[in-house]
């Protein structure tokens, strides 16, 4: 028994079931080398991901260069879109796209200036780049699978499991199409260089270049190129396989080459196999060694209605009208223009649609080339379809159930394994458009599954809500009980004082009601000194806990001062209780996080500053360690002031409950976001509006940044992003947050590049501040800037500071303005009392920020 590798080397082939032998008709187009057509005037570049994973980086009227990125975005499978030529963006609008439905998609319409001037290209050699850099380069070159499916290639080049075998697909089994054939003949060395990159990235044991035996010239060219290449001998092999449709299908090809079947519902990587198209290998080579993004591809223009059939380099975005008119397309009556081959291609309704990355062929057949449209006749269950089916399905049964709309039964006949190759329809003696039936059935099943999923989600949400309401109710009751008990205890000892205090409180409230801002000092005197002392004691105890207990190590171990006139002793006590509870929770969370359980640590403390961050346990631990150290330092620094660890001006509007709800929402959203971004490296910190920048935020930001910096150092990732989204939480929805994230990242990078230590970075109070994980120093700078800002805000001319508009590049992002407004109004509410406190806080913050900055710098070094 030979091993698989030996069999691969021998060129052993396995049989793929089913299949058909339609007329090839490739000689119509493969007789001449790949040519170029005159540059078109207008290009339509669809940017479908904009609004979901990406943002546009150009606006109408902008000049663009050839190869310039038109979008920026995040996400693992995000691919940028590039300008196919130099020119001007004349519109960004909904435009019909190259899809069977012709549904409009957001597209950039670019008017060529005729210069065809490239943007700056940065060629590299493999040695200059790390694997991640290569993957990034492939990703940012926008390389998608060129075989038709257009799946992002960098994903397939960065598999989770070991890859033993790479198959380079040059089979091109569809009739008419010869783009890969021609590419292999004309650019075999370039393809081999691309294969070299793939080899470098995946380091497989074998790379098989599979070519059908109807392309002997291509096979010869590739064979020669393999001989010439510098790749280790024996690794790359050209295997010629018999001509049969659909041998070029990924699953079929794997079966023919290895005898293995890709398990249903899985990807080939499961078997340690990855399949790449030859065109993709070529594009990878262009991206790495030339620095060129994927902006053009070889397209076969063929069919009897085309005057000069052949293969052409067409820029992505060339409209099909332009492409066809350049090769003397003559339209016949009831003309079909097919994108792709005659077996799997789709007929277009509108020709003003662009060439896409997966468009390998345009077929304009005459009437005698393709099947006439005939009426579907009755299925006689002859079973020819089952014999032709390469997926070993029973198309006649699928049809039977699909036609009766018994989709569940169709599904039980493994409808989902249908690859829509069209073999069944091809052999059907009754001219039944079987594939069409399956598509309808598949869509119906998909919709059904989606609805089911949504219903389940709604149920989960509803149950979670009920649970939350229940929890809140319980917490409220417990709190009330505790407060009542304490009140009773204090009543016993100092009844009179308590009564007096109560009176004073009532008076204070009244006074406040009548003239809210005129007598800010008056209620201060009514605060019961005893209660204050109790609070102080509690806070002291907590401070001790914070400094001594190793487990209690939250950076946001905050204690509310009682300075605010609106905070009466009761509230303060409640706050203290909550704070305590939270500290405990945090301690638990920390102990959990050390046990490697991913969780999101609640940073809401003292009921006034709800903020949430979803960090992974590693980050959380790092942050916790920093916080611990800081808390110690703080405790030492503030020993004289034993009642206050941290002066924290509180807002009058935020009450405990609201804040917690907000925090919960924020947390949930952050979590969701973290899940949505699969790389799990985006942390969003959503904070409700608070009055001024406090050092806590700066610390959190710095801690997160530092943690990230560390992570970065370990993982060498480049796209970790920390986003502090400060708008009122309920405005932020998932999508917006993601957009914000994308913007923030981009900005952070720009910022980091432009001015790494710029203290004048103005970030108005709590508006979005961006911490590029790459540059912890920037985080420190931001923190410092904030501290400064705070100091300014603390000056008598608060109003001026508050009324300063948010200097914000991101004002284009629609979540910003109201944030700035809220901030300003909040700042305006500061009383002189608060200002004083704020000044103290600012001083502390500044000091800390400086420390942090130093530390961050050290960390980075």
């Amino acid at each position, binding site marked *: 028994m030979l091993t698989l590798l030996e069999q691969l080397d021998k060129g052993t082939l396995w049989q793929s*079931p089913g299949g058909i032998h*339609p007329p090839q008709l490739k000689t119509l187009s493969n007789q001449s080398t790949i040519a170029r057509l005159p540059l078109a005037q207008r290009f339509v570049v669809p940017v479908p991901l904009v609004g979901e994973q990406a943002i546009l980086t150009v606006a109408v009227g902008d000049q663009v260069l050839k190869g310039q990125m038109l979008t920026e975005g995040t996400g693992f499978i995000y691919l940028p879109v590039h300008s196919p030529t130099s020119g001007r963006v004349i519109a960004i609008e909904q435009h019909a796209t190259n899809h069977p439905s012709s549904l409009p998609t957001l597209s950039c319409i670019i008017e060529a200036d005729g210069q065809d001037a490239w943007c700056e290209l940065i060629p590299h050699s493999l040695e200059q780049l790390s694997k991640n850099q290569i993957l990034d380069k492939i990703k940012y070159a926008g390389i998608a699978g060129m075989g038709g499916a257009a799946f992002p290639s960098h994903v397939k080049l960065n598999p989770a499991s070991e890859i033993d075998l790479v198959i380079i697909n040059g089979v091109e089994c569809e009739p008419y199409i010869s783009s890969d054939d021609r590419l292999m003949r004309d650019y075999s060395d370039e393809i081999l260089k691309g294969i070299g990159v793939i080899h470098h990235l995946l380091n497989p044991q074998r790379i098989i270049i599979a070519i059908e035996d109807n392309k002997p010239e291509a096979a010869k060219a590739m064979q020669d190129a393999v001989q010439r290449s510098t790749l280790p001998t024996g690794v790359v092999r050209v295997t010629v396989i018999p001509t049969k449709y659909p041998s070029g299908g990924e*699953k079929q090809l794997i*079966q023919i080459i290895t005898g*293995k*079947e*890709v*398990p*249903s*519902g*899985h990807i080939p990587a499961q078997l340690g196999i990855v399949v790449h198209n030859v065109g993709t290998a070529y594009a990878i080579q262009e991206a790495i060694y030339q620095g060129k993004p994927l902006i053009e591809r070889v397209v076969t223009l063929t069919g009897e209605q085309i005057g000069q059939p052949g293969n052409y380099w067409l820029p992505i975005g060339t409209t099909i009208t332009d492409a066809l008119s350049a090769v003397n397309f003559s*339209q016949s009556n*009831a*003309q*079909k223009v*097919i994108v*792709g081959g*005659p*077996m799997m*291609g*789709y*007929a*277009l*309704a*509108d*020709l003003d649609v662009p060439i896409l990355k997966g468009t390998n062929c345009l*077929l304009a057949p005459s009437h005698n080339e*393709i*099947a006439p*449209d005939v*009426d579907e*006749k*009755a299925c*006689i*269950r*002859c*079973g020819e379809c*089952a*014999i032709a089916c*390469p*997926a*070993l*399905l*029973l198309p*006649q*049964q699928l049809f039977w159930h699909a036609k009766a709309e018994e989709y569940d039964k169709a599904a039980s006949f*493994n409808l989902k*394994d249908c690859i*829509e190759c069209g073999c069944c*329809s*091809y*052999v*059907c*003696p*009754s*001219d039944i*458009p079987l*594939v*069409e039936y399956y*598509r309808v059935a598949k869509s119906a099943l998909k919709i059904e599954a989606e609805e089911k999923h949504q219903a389940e989600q709604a149920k989960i949400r509803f149950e979670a809500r009920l649970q939350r309401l229940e929890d809140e109710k319980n917490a409220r009751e417990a709190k009330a009980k505790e407060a009542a008990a304490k009140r009773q205890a204090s009543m016993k000892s100092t009844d009179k004082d308590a009564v007096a205090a109560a009176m004073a409180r009532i008076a204070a409230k009244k006074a406040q009601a009548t003239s809210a801002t005129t007598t800010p000092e008056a209620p201060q005197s009514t605060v019961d000194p005893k209660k204050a002392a109790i609070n102080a004691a509690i806070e002291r105890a907590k401070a001790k806990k914070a400094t001594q207990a190793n487990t209690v190590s939250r950076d946001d171990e905050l204690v509310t001062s009682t300075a605010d006139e609106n905070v009466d002793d009761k509230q303060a006590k409640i706050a203290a209780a909550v704070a305590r509870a939270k500290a405990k929770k945090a301690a638990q969370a920390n102990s959990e996080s050390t046990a490697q359980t991913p969780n999101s640590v609640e940073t809401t403390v003292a009921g006034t500053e709800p903020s949430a961050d979803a960090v992974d346990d590693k980050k959380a631990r790092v942050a916790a360690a920093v916080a611990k150290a800081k808390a110690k330092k703080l405790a030492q620094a503030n020993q004289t002031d034993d009642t206050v660890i941290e002066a924290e001006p509180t807002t009058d509007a935020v009450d405990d409950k609201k804040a917690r709800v907000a925090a919960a929402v924020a947390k949930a959203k952050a979590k969701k976001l973290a899940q949505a971004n699969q790389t799990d490296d985006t942390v969003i910190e959503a904070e409700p509006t608070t009055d001024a920048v406090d050092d806590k935020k700066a610390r959190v930001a710095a801690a997160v940044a530092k943690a990230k910096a560390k992570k970065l150092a370990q993982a060498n990732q480049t796209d970790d992003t920390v986003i502090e989204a400060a708008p009122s939480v309920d405005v932020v929805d998932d999508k917006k947050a993601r957009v914000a994230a994308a913007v923030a990242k981009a900005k952070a990078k720009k910022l980091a590049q432009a001015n790494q230590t710029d203290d004048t970075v103005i970030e108005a109070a709590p508006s979005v501040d961006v911490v590029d994980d790459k540059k912890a120093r920037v985080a420190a700078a931001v923190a410092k800037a904030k501290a400064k800002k705070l100091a300014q805000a603390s000056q008598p001319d608060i109003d001026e500071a508050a009324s300063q508009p948010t200097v914000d590049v991101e004002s284009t992002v629609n979540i910003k303005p109201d944030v700035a407004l809220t901030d300003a109004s909040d700042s305006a509410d500061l009383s002189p009392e608060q200002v004083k406190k704020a000044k103290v806080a600012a001083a502390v913050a500044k000091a800390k920020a400086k420390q942090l900055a130093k530390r961050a710098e050290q960390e980075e070094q």
Partner: protein
Amino acid sequence: MAFKIASSPHVSTSLHTNTVMKRVALCLIPGIAVQSYYFGFGTLVQILLAVSVAYLAEAAVMKLRNKNIKATLSDNSALVTACLLAVAIPPLAPWWLIVIGTLFAIVIVKQLYGGLGNNVFNPAMAAYVLLLISFPVQMTSWVAPQTIAINPASMLTSVQTIFEINPSFTAEYFRLGVDGIAMATPLDTLKTDLSMGLTTTESLAKPIFTGMGAEGWFWVNLAYLVGGLVMLKLKVIRWHISVAIIASLFLCASFGFLVSPDTFVSPLMHLFSGGTMLAAFFIATDPVTAATSPRGRLIFGAMIGVLIYLIRTFGGYPDAVAFAVLLANMCAPFIDYYVRPRSYGHRTGN
């Protein structure tokens, strides 16, 4: 600019249903020719009658159903049904027999179930069974092979007999063999003789058994076999059902013959007499009423083979093709439900 939208694929084979059906009918020709040679021109008359009635009946039903008459008639499925029924009944059976049978096959068995592709039972065989049960005398009055008959039927006499024009020409008249005794079919003869205590050897000594098995029947079966092989070659049918029928029948018969050669008919006699080859290649392979997966078809065919043997050997009828096919038709949906091929990617322990 108007562009034509269509779902992929945009090409297809030239083999269409009407061609398939036409080829089936054409492949019947060798069998019909040999059958006419041995049993007179009655068969041709029956075919003519059956085909015209079938087309008329189908057209009438299509008219009632408000469907395209031309499209339906041009699929040639009625032609095949009519031919199969016509070659299955005795060549000199009265005209009304084939008319009733054809009407039943087309109108009730096929169209009332929804037309081509929707019928559960093989129309020709269902009609055959109807006639056999309703008109057993007419249906069992096979003429003696022309080669050994006293009164070979000419074209004219055949027509006269079928249309009951001349009362002296009855089926009985043409059944007289060389020995002056009305002849039954070979299988009937064997069955009767065996039930009377004769051995197969004794029975086979009768004049109807000459040369290679049964006189005439052997060559008729061989001709249908040839037609069937042509169909296989043309990929009009696939091998599974035919091979399964022949193999299972052969195995069963061999087993019986080995156990007791005197009381059980030889495998060769089973394969080359009665309607075995006609059933194996032309009747049971009707795709509409057969199982649809390759493995299912093997089971389906094997079932027919076994049933033919069992009914012939132990049942009340000398031949059993029609019953076996109908019983297997009933099982086809069941077989299809349980016998499914392993789809790609569903290999266990992959």
